[in-house]
């Protein structure tokens, strides 16, 4: 491994450059995004909650906001006539490693005004909790579950916050964290054993054959899952 490669890997481990770190008010020259209409409006309305802002990747406006006001700002961005960000394209997160905050990223699009906006919200590792935006955008449901699954961020007020990609009883943690080992925490033997001990029946929606109303089907499946999990404990 050459020195160049090594230093590049070290940089990954140390996280973003100081100028990119959240909370740093001194954005590089020419990166001030306050000429974006929505960014200017957020600064005017929620100035205390805006950590910083910048242009990224060409014409992509990014705003960093504090977690306590994040839901309020997003709700205002969705409902205000001048903004109308009615499409939540993506909810994801980034772990920069090195004990830095995990940033939750909201990528939004306004179909009315044809505006794009990215809102980022840094969460310190000891307080990985943020208010869910499922009440604003239905699209955020599974996206927030994914962030919860892979990063361990808790979304308060989420109607159904459980793992979505990894198995329900996955015990090794949250795989996209920087401190998560590439091959997982358990040995291959343990991983294989746990995988084969999964209850395959819960992969199938067994209630949809005989039941009529969707609500009944949903209730039947909830009952099924509870019954199976209690069975599993008994084994």
């Amino acid at each position, binding site marked *: 491994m050459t020195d160049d490669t090594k230093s590049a890997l070290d940089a990954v481990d140390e996280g973003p450059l100081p100028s990119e770190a959240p909370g740093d008010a001194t954005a590089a020259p020419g990166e001030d995004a306050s000429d974006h209409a929505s960014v200017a409006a957020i600064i005017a309305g929620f100035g205390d909650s805006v950590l910083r802002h910048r242009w990224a990747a060409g014409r992509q406006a990014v705003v960093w906001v504090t977690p306590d006001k994040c839901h309020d700002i997003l709700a205002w961005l969705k409902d205000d006539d001048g903004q109308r960000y009615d499409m939540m394209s993506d909810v994801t997160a980034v772990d920069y490693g090195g004990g830095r905050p995990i940033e939750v990223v909201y990528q939004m699009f306004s179909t009315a005004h044809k505006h794009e906006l990215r809102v980022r919200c840094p969460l310190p590792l000891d307080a990985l909790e943020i208010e869910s935006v499922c009440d604003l955008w239905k699209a955020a449901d599974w996206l927030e579950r994914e962030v919860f699954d892979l990063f361990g961020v808790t979304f308060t007020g989420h109607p159904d916050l459980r793992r979505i990609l990894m198995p329900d009883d996955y015990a090794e943690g949250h795989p996209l964290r920087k401190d998560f080992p*590439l*091959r*997982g*925490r*358990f*040995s291959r*033997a*343990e991983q294989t*054993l746990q995988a084969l001990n999964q209850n395959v029946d819960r992969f199938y929606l067994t209630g949809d054959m005989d039941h009529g109303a969707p609500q009944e089907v949903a209730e039947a499946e909830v009952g099924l899952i509870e019954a199976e999990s209690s069975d599993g404990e008994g084994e």
Partner: protein
Amino acid sequence: MGLSDVLPGAGPTKTTGGIFGSGSPTFLTSKVDAIINWGRLNSLWPMPFGTACCAIEMMASAASNYDLARFGMERMSFSPRQADVLICAGRVPYKLAPVLRRVWDQMPQPKWCISMGACASSGGVFDVYSMVQGIDTIVPVDVYIPGCPPRPEGLIYGLMMIQEKIRQESLTRHFEHRAEDPALVARPKAGPEELVGLTGPFGNSTQQERLSDGVAVKVESASTDDLLS
């Protein structure tokens, strides 16, 4: 060994009006093994378990250009109950491992398994937390097809190797060949030592440890008793 050895009195019989003309035999003798194996190897019904790009090549194999039907495999069986050979085409994550195992357990004997491509055979480039490191840890594999993905010729060659394997089988040794321990149904196929052997860092450029940041971890491998209980 002809039929006449098995069934007293059986054998070529002189009759009139046979297919080869007057006085020729109206039946031929053969080995039971040969007939049964001939029937089996020319009517293999594949159970396609396609999870990734290998499945595209598998579909191409079945399509008109390569035409698996030439070998009696035109009927892709999407139910394991009517399938003879499991073609696992693509990477298998741990979440899918019990499904693969159940599909295999549901297939009736005699059955064979093909591991198609690098990922199914060894995990391939996916030496990560979520991926089964070779489906032979989950189910018994008869033929491994290398490639990323293998070309349709590769899959057809692998299926013809299955045919060759069937051709060598004998009814007298059938149960020896196809024996399956009921206690191992829905259990890992690989032995504990084999599974533990997959744990070590091999060929991975990061050489990453499983321990990290003092998080309580469970590194000890499952004991032999756990794996076989």
